[in-house]
């Protein structure tokens, strides 16, 4: 019979896969490749920007339809310098945050209930799935009628947009928690709240964060819709105002601002979630390393 000491066994197992720190060479090689890839991604936008500027400078593109990038940047700078931008940005951010908070809160409560309990799922889910099939903008006239044309109706619309991805991801996430892990919890006499806290919540968090991120993305879409419907302030108002006053530079500047703020809030959300999802990040890093090692 083969007898191995525990040290020898550990060495034997190391041959299968060493932990991350033990493979710095592979990790370094893997890290260099994506940096080449990233700078490669800048080539096309740069060419396009230069070509766009040239088209405008030479007068081939009509300046009343397509302003030069430099004109857009100039307008943006003017908006920043005059401080006008902060008014628009802050009211839009307020609408997004309030709507996101409200939508995500309700979605979390309902998603947790329907994911955890079959009874609640049978009670709520058919109704919610039905409501989901209504194009969300169809709510606008009703919300305006009920809540007025000011902030409440806009926030409600954003909340509706945020609600569904969060709700669906959370419910699906809870339902797809590995039954075998739940059984380990039961084996150690966890039930009710203890089981939720120690097994279900951590196992569901990745899906929940995916839901929050797509919810936030939709929130930005819906705030724009809400501001199109009637607003005197906000980034969406900048777009409409640019159209009304035939200032394409203002429209493009508004689009850029949406991109910047949308990306920034998404980044904040990812940062906020990182401590809870670190185990998953390291898993992704590991698979990336493995993939790079396989490629090398």
């Amino acid at each position: 019979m083969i007898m191995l000491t525990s040290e020898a066994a550990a060495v034997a197992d190391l041959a299968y896969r060493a932990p991350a720190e033990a493979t710095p060479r592979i990790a370094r090689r893997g890290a260099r490749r994506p940096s080449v890839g990233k700078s490669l991604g800048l080539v096309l936008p740069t060419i396009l920007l230069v070509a766009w500027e040239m088209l405008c400078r030479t007068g081939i593109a009509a300046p009343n339809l397509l302003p030069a990038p430099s004109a857009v940047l100039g307008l943006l700078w003017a908006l920043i310098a005059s401080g006008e931008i902060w008014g628009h940005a802050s009211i839009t951010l307020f609408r997004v945050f309030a709507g996101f908070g409200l939508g995500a809160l309700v979605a979390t409560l309902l998603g947790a209930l329907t994911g955890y309990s079959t009874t609640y799922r049978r009670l709520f889910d058919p109704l919610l799935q039905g409501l989901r099939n209504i194009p969300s903008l169809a709510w606008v006239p009703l919300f305006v009628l009920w809540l007025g044309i000011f902030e409440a109706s806009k926030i409600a619309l954003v909340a509706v947009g945020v609600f569904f991805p969060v709700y669906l991801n959370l419910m699906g996430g809870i339902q797809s928690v590995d039954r075998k892990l739940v059984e380990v919890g039961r084996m150690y006499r966890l039930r009710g709240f203890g089981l939720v806290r120690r097994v279900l919540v951590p196992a569901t968090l990745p899906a929940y964060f995916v839901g929050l991120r797509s919810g936030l993305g939709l929130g930005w879409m819906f705030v724009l819709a809400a501001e199109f419907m009637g607003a005197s302030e906000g980034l969406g108002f900048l777009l409409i105002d640019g159209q009304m006053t035939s200032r394409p530079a203002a429209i493009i500047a508004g689009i850029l601002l949406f991109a910047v703020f949308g990306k920034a809030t998404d980044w904040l959300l990812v940062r906020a979630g990182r401590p809870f999802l670190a185990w998953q990040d390291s898993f992704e890093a590991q698979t990336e390393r493995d993939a790079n090692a396989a490629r090398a």
Partner: protein
Amino acid sequence: MLRVRDLSKRFESGVTALERVGFTLERGEILAVVGTSGCGKSTLLRLIAGLDRPSAGNISIDNQDVDGPNPLVGFVFQEPRLMPWLKIRDNVTFGLSGLGAQEKNARALRALEEVGLADFAEALPQQLSGGMAQRVAIARALVTEPSVLLLDEPFSALDAFTRLNLQDHLLSIWRRHRPTMVLVTHDIEEALALADRVVIMRGAPGRIHRTIELREDRPRKRTATEFQTLKEEILDALHLVPA
């Protein structure tokens, strides 16, 4: 002492998985349960663990009736079933309750040392190979110092070399703690190498077909004639020998 009396399990679907199974194990005895798939051997383990309720009969550990999962029992599943979000150390202490953080840590490290993985306390489960992960699962089951250790085909997903290695590991752990063990396996050699007693189950419904007592000291020579004879006998009993 683990006593199983007249144990039957009928599922709601009407399928009878176990019928009148009984045995008694003294403290520190190792019982191996072998049988073809569907003979109810996993059901038997789940009943002893308190994860399922029997339809009839009863189970007692040290004269206490089992009526649900309890701290006297440790369970090693077929898969490691580690929580992917917890460090190895926290996976090991998962089942420890009512202890200070320091005491938990110390126990986790001791259990990890026993399975040769003390250096991996801070790693995440994804960084481990299958054999290492299963050793962590064994450490998790041991850390609560159970008097009964249940193992449900614990090494069946591993390659032959790792399996032999872990069987030795299990024996050395048993020598130190002497838990009563019930090992469900479809690997007859594993049963013959580790157990004091081998129960052969046939189904369905699952019943005990035969019991073989093994007296030879461990570690046992797997190539010995007697070992091979017993192996053939068991294969015979399971109708697995080609004509």
